[in-house]
């Protein structure tokens, strides 16, 4: 197996992990607000967050590319701060992946927070827990399963994404070429041996990952940590 393929796999994994971690951090407050906030803006934000579900990935990728390029709003802002434009960089890939996988992270967490219910938080308040304390000691643990689902979905979705990554990353081997794009290149070049190897690795990685999550899930549930 070529070193370029190994690097592509490494980039994919790094991208998926980074995206998942950042998404979970970002989505916790966002999902909380969507779940319990009383504002009317909620419906609009809910729809916006779900947009990547229906938008063709190339459309999202194209807009992001324009935004992140040296003449795009984000590119210009970053240049002004003395930073490089994010198009065709790993940072750009992370940004694009986060947007693309946003609904897969927000929705399970939002639903989990909703099912925690106002009553549990009222109970916590009558037991002397401040709002922050209630959030960390009641809402988060009760929503643990939603976080698990969000993590698995974001990770898998990022690992498999193609259109957005191709648009923003530009398929630069060793830098922004992910495993799924490398696989496409091999297939296009009729290098079926290499394509088979890469596919098999991706398949095994995904399966092992899911197996791990489900085992952990069951362990935690038996231990009563997850519901």
């Amino acid at each position, binding site marked *: 197996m070529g070193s370029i393929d190994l690097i592509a796999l490494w980039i994919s994994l790094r991208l998926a992990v980074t995206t998942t971690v950042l998404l979970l951090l970002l989505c916790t407050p966002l999902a909380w607000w969507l779940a319990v906030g009383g504002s009317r803006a909620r419906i609009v934000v809910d729809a916006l967050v779900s947009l990547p579900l229906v938008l063709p990935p190339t459309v999202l990728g194209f807009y992001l590319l324009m935004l992140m390029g040296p003449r795009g709003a984000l590119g210009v802002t970053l240049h002004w701060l003395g930073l490089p434009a994010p198009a065709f960089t790993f940072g750009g890939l992370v940004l694009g992946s986060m947007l693309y996988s946003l609904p897969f992270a927000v929705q399970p967490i939002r639903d989990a927070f909703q099912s925690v219910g106002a009553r*549990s938080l009222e109970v916590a*308040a*009558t037991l*002397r827990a401040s709002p922050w304390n209630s959030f960390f000691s009641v809402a988060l643990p*009760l929503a643990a399963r939603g976080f698990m689902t969000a993590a698995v979905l974001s990770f898998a979705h990022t690992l498999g994404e193609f259109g957005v990554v191709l648009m923003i990353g530009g398929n630069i081997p060793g830098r922004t070429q992910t495993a799924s794009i490398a696989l496409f290149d091999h297939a296009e070049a009729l290098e079926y041996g290499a394509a088979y190897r890469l596919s098999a690795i991706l398949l095994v990685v995904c399966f092992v990952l899911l197996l791990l999550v489900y085992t952990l899930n069951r362990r935690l549930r038996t231990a*009563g940590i997850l519901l």
Partner: protein
Amino acid sequence: MTLSLRASLARADFTLDVECDIPTRGITGVFGRSGSGKTTLLRCIAGLERAVQARIECDGELWQDEGRFVPTYRRAVGYVFQESSLFAHLDVRGNLEFGLHRVPLRERRLEFDEVVALLDLSTLLRHRAPQLSGGERQRVAIARALLTSPRLLLMDEPVSNLDERSKAQILPHLERLRDSSAIPIIYVSHALGEILRLADHLILLQSGRVRAAGPLQQLLARSDLPLGHFEDSGSVFDAVVEEHDPNYHLTYVRICAGRLAVALRPVAVGHRIRVRIDARDVSLALKPPELSSIINILPATVLELSGDADPAQTLVRLEAGAEPLLARITRRSAVQLGLSPGTALYAQVKSVSLMESSATGLNW
């Protein structure tokens, strides 16, 4: 010591406008039909609901006033909700310790082990909510609230979602709590039977307003209040234990009107207890009945007769030894006996409930 309360709050379908002083000792029952504002009142006291215009002061500590609102987690109240509200991610011990650990050591007045013993939870500590029966869950919820050493324990229909058997199991625990702890309780219920059994003081709510408030016995005696017309209505008497008769397995207690026999209870002679007589368990006779199986017979005078919700029944308000006694008899009997205010007669009491439990004595 009192909780002084004034709160008004308007909802789409309902307005609460309440002003009253609640003694912070014993059990105060808040009674009213569903929709009369009982729960909203309790939520205002706890700070879960923010009444627009309100002044709430508990034992000299101001909880709410214009420009001041102490949030729930800073009010020393315990709250027991109607439905099971145990945290599903914690076992029973974890639930009990949740509040306990959030109360500073110097404010803790109740020990973990005492409360566990009081509510009989020692064998359940490792269980989780789904493994518990409804009654057990409520016992855990009560213990959890108690462990925050509240100044005031608020209970919102804590047994109304339980079946009769669980209810019967949990009420003695509440009596023990009343008799052994110094924590005042505000007990909301739409079941008069529970109120009669537990409360010393009563607040009667009607359409969001306080219809009447005062000591339970006084309110029960008032004919202008609808209390007599409930299915489980009755009279409450203070009594002194006079004598035990182990031979017939009876305990004799004395009330103003005379002597009553109840099933033997291990209560010391001379001890003061409360007894309740349900209106439906009282029948009336113009002459002292002879050769009757009923042993509790009290001389009484008719004060007033009133129609009942059930057209076949009449509610008779009596005076027995200067204390009020309610009887519910058929309208036909009332006519046949020719009852009218002033008629002297004999009240035959079929059943007397003794409302005392052996106090376990918590350290305060």
